[in-house]
């Protein structure tokens, strides 16, 4: 967490008691006994979920279609609320945060990029968060240009986001979230629609993000992509954690 981010949190009165840096190194995001079912439905989409994320390293969440991966990520960013159980972000209940406060800490790339766009041009979409967080216009311009260039979106900078192809939309969605440089990232199916070259670019960038001390959760079906990146792999099955393993061989256990 940068000095600037800590100052911003202090000003907003969001600083929890104690040494925040030490605190967040321990557990950035904690899910305890999470159960979720849609209103009016008895069957639980997720149940008995207990997970802790330290805020560092890359974690992959895998599992068959409909096992609750996207629901899990939506719970983590507060779009959905658990039916029971508690989610804690930096030691405080997620219910105490507004969506904007969560958004400043966790960057979320939606499974469907169309759900994420609301600006009239590609460049505006990337710079939106930065502009509204009060960054200097020069910084915004510089960062927008960097991400446009990195994700090869420069030719489309003035285009309407919904006019792009699926792969381009996916790149834009990722770029728009990365530009805000949140301390933690959740990417839901980020490789869908990307060709091998662009997947490699994304992989390299995510490596850099992780090396800079930020945490990442990737929901994906792409085994190769996950193998290259993730240190920890969580497998969901029928709404429960089936496996939570350490990819580099620190030992794994069945949940």
């Amino acid at each position: 967490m940068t000095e600037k981010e800590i100052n911003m949190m202090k000003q907003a009165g969001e600083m929890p008691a104690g040494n925040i840096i030490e605190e967040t190194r321990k557990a950035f995001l904690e899910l305890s006994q999470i159960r979720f079912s849609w209103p009016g439905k008895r069957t639980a989409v997720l149940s008995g979920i207990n997970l802790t994320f330290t805020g560092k390293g890359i974690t992959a969440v895998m599992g068959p279609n409909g096992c609750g991966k996207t629901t899990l990520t939506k719970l983590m960013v507060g779009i959905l609320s658990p039916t029971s159980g508690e989610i804690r972000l930096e030691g405080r209940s997620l219910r105490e945060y507004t969506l904007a406060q969560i958004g400043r800490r966790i960057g979320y790339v939606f499974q469907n990029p169309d759900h994420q766009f609301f600006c009239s041009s590609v460049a505006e979409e990337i710079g939106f968060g930065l502009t509204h967080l009060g960054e200097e216009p020069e910084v915004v311009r510089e960062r927008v240009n960097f991400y446009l260039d990195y994700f090869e979106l420069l030719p489309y900078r003035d285009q309407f986001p919904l006019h792009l192809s699926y792969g381009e939309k996916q790149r834009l969605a990722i770029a728009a979230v990365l530009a805000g440089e949140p301390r933690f990232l959740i990417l839901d199916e980020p490789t869908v629609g990307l060709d091998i070259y662009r997947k490699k670019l994304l992989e390299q960038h995510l490596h850099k993000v992780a090396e800079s001390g930020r945490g990442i959760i990737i929901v994906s079906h792409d085994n190769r992509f996950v193998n290259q990146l993730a240190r920890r792999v969580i497998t969901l099955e029928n709404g429960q954690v089936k496996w939570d393993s350490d990819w580099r061989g620190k030992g794994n256990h069945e949940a």
Partner: protein
Amino acid sequence: MKLDPRTKLVMVLCITTLAIVYNTPGALFLLLAATIGLLFLFRINLIGVMGYLKPYFMLLLVLFLAQCIFTPGGEVLLAIGPVRLLGTRGLLMGTSVVLRLLIVIAAAVLLTTSNSRDFISGLVHWKVPYEIAFMVSITIRFLPVFRDEFINVVTAVQLRGVELKQVSWGRKIDLFRRLFFPVVYGALLKAQQLSVAMEARGFRAYPRRTYLRQLFLTRLDICLMVICPGLTLFLIGLHMI
């Protein structure tokens, strides 16, 4: 109670006609009670419907207050000095408007007991061109799409760190004005994609369509289709006297 969608359409038409004709809170209240009775007969979960309508209660309250304050006439019930705040006529008008809206909403809930495909089929049986019938059903289907689009946009904006509740009204209006175009345009793009997908699957390829599911009017349907308009005309006549 299982009825043909056409019967439900006739019933809704009758109820809404009466809601427009009646202008006293007493009559409107009785009509609302009768409509809610019908919802019970159709075994509709009223608590669920109330939950769905909760966000609109504020709108009803605003409408009620506006009618109360701005309708002149009648005895003054509440005033601050020379400024009249509430009169008997305003109170009656406010109550009537709210009851009328509740009746229309309750009647519309009746339509949710059949799926849109059955309504299209019903309208086609009434010789409405199937393109128009389909257009009506798509329009109804697109209302929640607009709502979802808006919810998605508001969520996405907040997740980029913008505290909408703390933003000043001026900035909020400016933000929503800027968001309006992409949301509407996004919905139009979806409509365009839908029309391409429909045509790709042969929609309008032939002047006539056949339907796998056929609708049949039962005796109860026919009876209700005769009784409901008859009763409505009778009640309107009674009201006019």
